[in-house]
């Protein structure tokens, strides 16, 4: 029984991990290549979820909703890049943080005007709603397994693109020396827009997959954004591999902490004390982990440079 519970929570952790990875991959590339801090990355996650819900209701088809949601987020991301972010590349991080903070306020309110402040819930098609028996006595939702599968597949595709293609070569070159890449005649501006659009689409994918699991509401992107920062700090800026490892660590530690820390503490200290301290400690766990990693490796586990 305990093992089955542990197994299920571990899978939940992996599922949270791949969602974090989809967010972190785009953000870490944008950070690594453009040296640009984009707080509005969480807003793209939110936009993805909302567009998927709206498109699914409009077309009546979930796959079409997903496709439109992805395409829509890509367009929104590129539009934001061209309209608001380009003038900020030459500025320092402080300006970038402040401007994208303004964008978050704008997007949250815009979404609230269009779809209201209440949470939206989406119904999944029948073929995603069931459960499968993974181990004897353990049933697990098909949808969460699908999320894990899609996340790992995207991780593989990203690995392939970054390490085996010409575009990936430019991305890696951009992350290690931007000026040199530009001097060699690469259209760095276009590369920026492409990478940013990619990152936006990945954030949208994370959002539209998370939508049916958590609730779709204004501000949903900010909570995950800060967790994604923890992932990037742990993994190292600019490293897709670091983003994957960091995301899985954070996802699993957070999920297992919330599930098991309280009962475990109950064995050590008195149950009422554990009742009070357990949830508090569980919610702080990933940040303490981050502090620990920083103490040992200040530049993160993997670095692109």
């Amino acid at each position: 029984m305990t093992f089955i519970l542990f197994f299920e929570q571990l899978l939940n952790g992996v599922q949270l991990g791949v969602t974090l990875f989809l967010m972190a991959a785009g953000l870490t590339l944008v950070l690594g290549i453009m040296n640009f801090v984009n707080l509005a990355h969480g807003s793209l996650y939110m936009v993805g979820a909302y567009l998927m819900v709206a498109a699914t209701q409009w077309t009546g088809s979930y796959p079409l909703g997903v496709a439109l949601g992805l395409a829509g987020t890509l367009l929104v991301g590129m539009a934001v890049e061209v309209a608001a972010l380009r003038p900020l590349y030459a500025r320092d991080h402080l300006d970038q943080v402040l401007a994208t903070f303004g964008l978050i306020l704008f997007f949250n309110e815009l979404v609230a005007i269009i779809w209201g402040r209440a949470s939206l819930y989406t119904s999944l098609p029948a073929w995603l709603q069931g459960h499968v028996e993974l181990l004897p006595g353990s049933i697990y939702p098909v949808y969460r397994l699908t999320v894990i599968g899609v996340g790992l597949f995207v991780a593989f595709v990203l690995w392939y693109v970054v390490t085996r293609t010409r575009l990936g070569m430019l991305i890696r070159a951009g992350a290690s020396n931007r000026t040199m890449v530009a001097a060699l005649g690469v259209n760095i501006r276009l590369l920026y827009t492409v990478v940013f659009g990619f990152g936006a689409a990945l954030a949208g994918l994370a959002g539209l997959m998370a939508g049916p699991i958590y609730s779709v509401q204004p501000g949903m992107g900010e909570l995950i954004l800060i967790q994604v920062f923890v992932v990037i700090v742990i993994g190292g800026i600019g490293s897709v591999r670091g983003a994957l490892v960091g995301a899985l660590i954070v996802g699993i530690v957070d999920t297992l902490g919330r599930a098991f820390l309280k009962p475990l503490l109950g064995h050590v200290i008195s149950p009422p004390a554990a009742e009070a301290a357990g949830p508090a400690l569980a919610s702080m766990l990933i940040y303490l982990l981050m502090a620990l990693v920083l103490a040992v490796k200040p530049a993160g586990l993997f670095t692109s440079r």
Partner: protein
Amino acid sequence: MKTRAILWGAFVLLLAALPPVALELGQPFYLDLVRRIMIFAIAAISLNLILGYGGMVSFGHAAYLGVGGYAVGILAFHGFDNGLLQWGAAIGGSALVALAIGAVSIRTSGVYFIMITLAFTQMLYYLGVSLEEYGGDDGMRLRTRSEFPLVDLKDPVTFYYVVLGLMLLSIFIVFKLVNSRFGMVLRAAKSNEARALAIGFSPYPYRLAAFVIAGAMGGLAGALLVNHTSYLTPDFMHWTRSGEIMFMVILGGMATHAGPVAGAFAFLLVEDMLSAWVPLAFVREHWQLFLGPLLVLSVLFFRRGLAGIFGKHDG
């Protein structure tokens, strides 16, 4: 120099004259508004010490508002209403928290520093949310304001003047610090770290000390804020709060002494205007839709801040 002294004098006189005028006009609301603005100005002044003069882009200054607020709130909850004890705990507690956060984060720089200070503040936010005994997510009402001998904070006018006095004291402390030897090293490390190292200064202890001082002042602002609202919630530490305080500093002008104060007034007055005074109901209801782009534009085109209008920088 002379114009600036006159401006400062006029500003202080204006603030000092506000309570009798507001009460005479039967508008005690303004007392409340300006008191709140001055409390945030203290937070912005303290952030300016590390952000403006120290070059440390801390996206977690709301943490100290929260620690200060919780120190007062928790002591009051357990029946300790003595203001000296409460405010001492608020200042000491946030200095300790700043020491812990600073010790880890100042070893890094750039984007890492931004993300780490943000992450630690979010950790404290979640800690506040999970403290069920003290109201958890919903927060809790403060039974009574901090009690001091001779001074009665329950009187709104007295409380106003206490906040005004502490704000002026904060400006003075930061002014003294920045112009001391300590402040010189801090500013030197900001403008050229390699050179500061070369002439024999290790910036780390100076930065950490500035970080702790700023945290302690932020804790004082938190103690004032919880007395002002009489209500304690984890929202004191919400990450958007940190962003707002940062905006106050930038809007007013970084590394200037008047900047954070001017910025706090400008930011909160614009916020108040958009959310309550604009005659269009749509704008009032969705004021953030307008505040957001306004902030983006101010970053893009209003780089030097309000203090930049008056020309030269103090720092």
